[in-house]
């Protein structure tokens, strides 16, 4: 049985109708993992025993939620009580959290079954998963290429059918970009929509947890589970969560689409641009309209991000000091040297770079010129989006300037790696939601369409994405493994 090839909602239907059992499903998933994981390297660890135990329990006692019994992969920066959570960093390589992230509790209540923790760029800093201290995950479409990052493991696992769906985190594009590279659906919710409690922080004002799935329906169902107000997260929004299933209708008549010229200019590959224009024509055929617009402050987005994110990260990562948990250096004559060695041994180069930039941007004499200035420019970016949404319902662009690049291609040039996030970063700065959906191929490599929406308007995103998906069915094409 090729249960692993099905979407989560298809599996949920079969489980509910008792056509299949949970144990059967979980065994099938792990068989698939055994078959392809050697090639893909999506997981840092697998939790087979716990998964089978949970599956048996559900088979015995019955399902308790819409996605009950469905196997899910979790990015390894989401805290799981009793299960190693490493952020793909040496400094946390043996760290076992003493508590569960809120999203994990929500998944458990729903009866979903975590199958393992997926690989990521160390501390979610990167766009290729090559910054992982443990291994490089491969793109299932071409194992010479990166799956994207930082949620590369989650995206690859879903694309390779090693999990029916996955959770990732997105700070500057870390769900959407790997989704685009791996030909899957990836959503970054509005900032505050999904609790960050238990998400190991990278940049607190930008991070969000979100779904990576095989189709838009799965993303909507998973959002129904995780998009809940959480008192333990002071940045969690106390707003009602709509039933996103209701947004899964094929109707975009009258939908007004804005296309920023800044995100369709030079730097975007021709084939990618073509795919996006084709997609816009499909929307037009379905009754929507699109128009080119300008969001002038977008030219500052990358620079703004690369001040704010490292600044917050430099503070968030101070706690990894060898005192209370995590790696501690053997060289410890005294406290100061223990700090210096522990952090030097424990962090990889990209993390160190960002800590230094961030510390510098916050330091005395530079705070105003860098951090404060960047926060003001952030206001301009948000304003540009707010203004655009006065006249438009959604904004669209390519998710990435090009399809997946080769492993090793950008590793030695950090700046060129950063530039690949040019379309995704502004969304995190503005705090608005965005979804990436497959919209075509360039030399057999997936291309992603990014749809951005108003704050807390994931409903329109789902409707627009679902409509396109129903019309084009790009998601049905799978990598050959």
């Amino acid at each position: 049985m090729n249960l692993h090839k099905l979407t989560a909602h298809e599996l949920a239907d079969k489980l509910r109708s008792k056509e299949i059992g949970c144990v059967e499903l979980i065994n099938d998933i792990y068989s698939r993992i055994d078959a392809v994981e050697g090639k893909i390297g999506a997981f840092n660890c697998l939790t087979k025993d716990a998964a089978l135990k949970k599956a048996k329990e559900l088979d015995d006692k019955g399902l308790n939620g819409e996605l009950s019994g469905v196997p899910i992969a979790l990015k390894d920066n989401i805290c799981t009580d009793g299960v190693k959570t490493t952020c793909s960093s040496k400094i946390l390589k043996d760290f076992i959290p003493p508590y569960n992230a809120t999203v994990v509790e929500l998944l458990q209540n729903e009866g979903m079954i975590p199958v393992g923790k997926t690989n990521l760029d160390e501390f979610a800093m990167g766009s290729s998963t090559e910054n992982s201290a443990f291994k490089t995950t491969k793109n299932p479409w071409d194992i010479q290429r990166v799956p994207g990052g930082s949620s590369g493991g989650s995206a690859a696992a879903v694309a390779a059918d090693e999990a029916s769906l996955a959770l990732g985190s997105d700070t500057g594009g870390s769900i959407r970009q790997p989704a685009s590279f791996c030909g899957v659906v990836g959503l970054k919710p509005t900032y505050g929509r999904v609790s960050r409690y238990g998400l190991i922080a990278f940049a607190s004002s930008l991070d969000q947890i979100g779904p990576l799935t095989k189709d838009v329906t799965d993303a909507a169902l998973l959002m129904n589970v995780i998009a809940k107000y959480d008192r333990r997260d002071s940045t969690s929004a106390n707003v009602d969560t709509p039933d996103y299933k209701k947004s899964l209708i094929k109707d975009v008549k009258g939908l007004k689409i804005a296309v920023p010229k800044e995100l369709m200019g030079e730097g975007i590959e021709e084939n990618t641009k073509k795919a996006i224009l084709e997609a816009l024509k499909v929307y037009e055929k379905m009754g929507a309209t699109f128009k080119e617009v300008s969001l002038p402050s977008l030219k500052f987005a990358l620079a703004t991000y690369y001040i704010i994110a490292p600044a917050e990260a430099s503070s968030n990562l101070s706690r990894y000091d060898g005192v209370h948990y995590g790696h501690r250096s053997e060289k410890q004559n005294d406290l100061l040297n223990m700090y210096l060695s522990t952090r030097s041994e424990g962090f990889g180069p990209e993390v160190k770079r960002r800590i230094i930039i961030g510390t510098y941007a916050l330091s005395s004499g530079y705070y105003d010129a860098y951090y404060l200035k960047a926060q003001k420019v952030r206001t301009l970016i948000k304003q540009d989006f707010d203004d655009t949404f006065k006249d438009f319902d959604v904004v669209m662009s390519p998710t990435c300037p090009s399809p997946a690049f080769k492993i090793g291609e950008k590793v030695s040039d950090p700046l060129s790696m950063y530039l690949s996030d040019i379309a995704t970063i502004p969304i995190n700065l503005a705090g608005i939601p965005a979804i990436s959906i497959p919209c075509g191929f360039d030399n057999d490599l997936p291309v992603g369409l990014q749809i951005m929406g108003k704050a807390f308007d994931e409903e329109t995103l789902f409707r627009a994405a679902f409509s396109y998906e129903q019309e084009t069915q790009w998601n049905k094409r799978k990598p050959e493994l």
Partner: protein
Amino acid sequence: MFGSCTPEPTIYRRAMIGNEIMNFETVIGLETHAQLQTESKMFCSCSTKFGNDPNSNICPVCTGQPGSLPVINEKAVRLAVKTALALNCKINNESVFARKNYFYPDLPKDYQISQFEMPLAEHGYLEIEVGGQIKKIGITRVHLEEDAGKLVHKGSAGIKGSDYSLVDLNRTGTPLMEIVSEPDLRTPEEARVYMEELAHILRYLEVCDAKLEEGSMRCDANISIRRAGVKELGVKTELKNMNSFKAVQKALEKEEARQKEVVSEGGKIYQQTLLFDEATSSVHPMRSKEGSHDYRYFPDPDLLPLYVDEKMIEEVKGLTGELPIEKFKRFVSQYGIPGQDINVLIESRYTADFFEETVKLNSEPKLSANWLIGDIPAYLNANNIELKETKLTPVLLAEMIGLVKTGAVSGNSAKKVVAEMIKTGRSAKELVESMGASQISDESALIEIAERVVAANPQSVEAFKSGKEAAIKHLIGQAMKETKGRANPRLIETLIKKTLG
């Protein structure tokens, strides 16, 4: 003396220095950290109870576990607002929590959540009385932050020369309120008085139990000197580790003297931190590096701005009630009791309220005050309990005072009865009966006893009649003995005298 030329120049130089010293002005500012009396910590729900086993009141948030997030304790905010209002500050409707970044093992996140550019409250003042004058000391700001943990150093008495250290995070995350004064204090004595007054207010507001010895209140002092008339401030040094009000004054006196001596001899004051050593009553420089810290403050992105609206301010105002200084003024005019007595009465709000309740019932402010200043505290102190822990109530005390007034109980017996009331809460009437403490004030009964005593003690009668006034005391004593202390002393004395003619 002749020959040596040193005496005169020395005397001259000393006089010069004396003049110089007299022309210096001392400038002192104080930073106080007060632990707020909340049930739980500032950003998590761990208990703030003191004295538990190491690391027994901890959780993912206060131990800075990866992925944990802070949530503000509302009570801590209200207590800080209450304090700021009592210190006449302006409350900022919007203030910001900021991260203060530095590395230390008692700070698990390696940053402290505090307030920097936009504190909760600013621009207030506190009045102190020094040498009969009332002086206003400016309060620059009041803000909220979290406390760090405790370190135990092994291998030596303190951190110096230790082999290793142990970290207890029970205290980490406890709500702290920082109160910064303007550099308006001019003498070490003023500084001590300021600290005492501030501690009194904090205790009165039930915001902090304000004990320097226990660390629930901590004091850091900044001190500098300048020549009289000069506007610019001199270089200041920082003093730490003053664990009593006396220590605050002593430490500042020592440092003030040191600075004056250095400057008088043409030297310069360098910015440094000094620790007060209780044992030797002296100040020593701390062994850490020079230079200021770069804390890289920035608004904490895990928290929203702290919005304190007028509604909350009004609610807090309504619950605060009268402040010590207001109560003092009112008691003076309303009850006409001496100022130093009022101070004792209003030391705690409970006692002040108790007093007023009692006076409402018996309209006897002086008598009621006497009890609450004298015998009752004496008993409480001897037994190490507080008034609010006892069974004594204003109703009971008023009743007792009433009985003494009518002569039903003598003053001495009353003390014993009150002690029982404190323990048992039983009524005065009940206790007087059961203890047999009622005073005999019945003339007809007492006259019999007076006659009996006079008849039985001819020597004393002789002595008295021949002019020895004191002899009557023996007769009164006998009468008291016979009545087991219950005779109304004034009445029996009168009756004995009458009997003697």
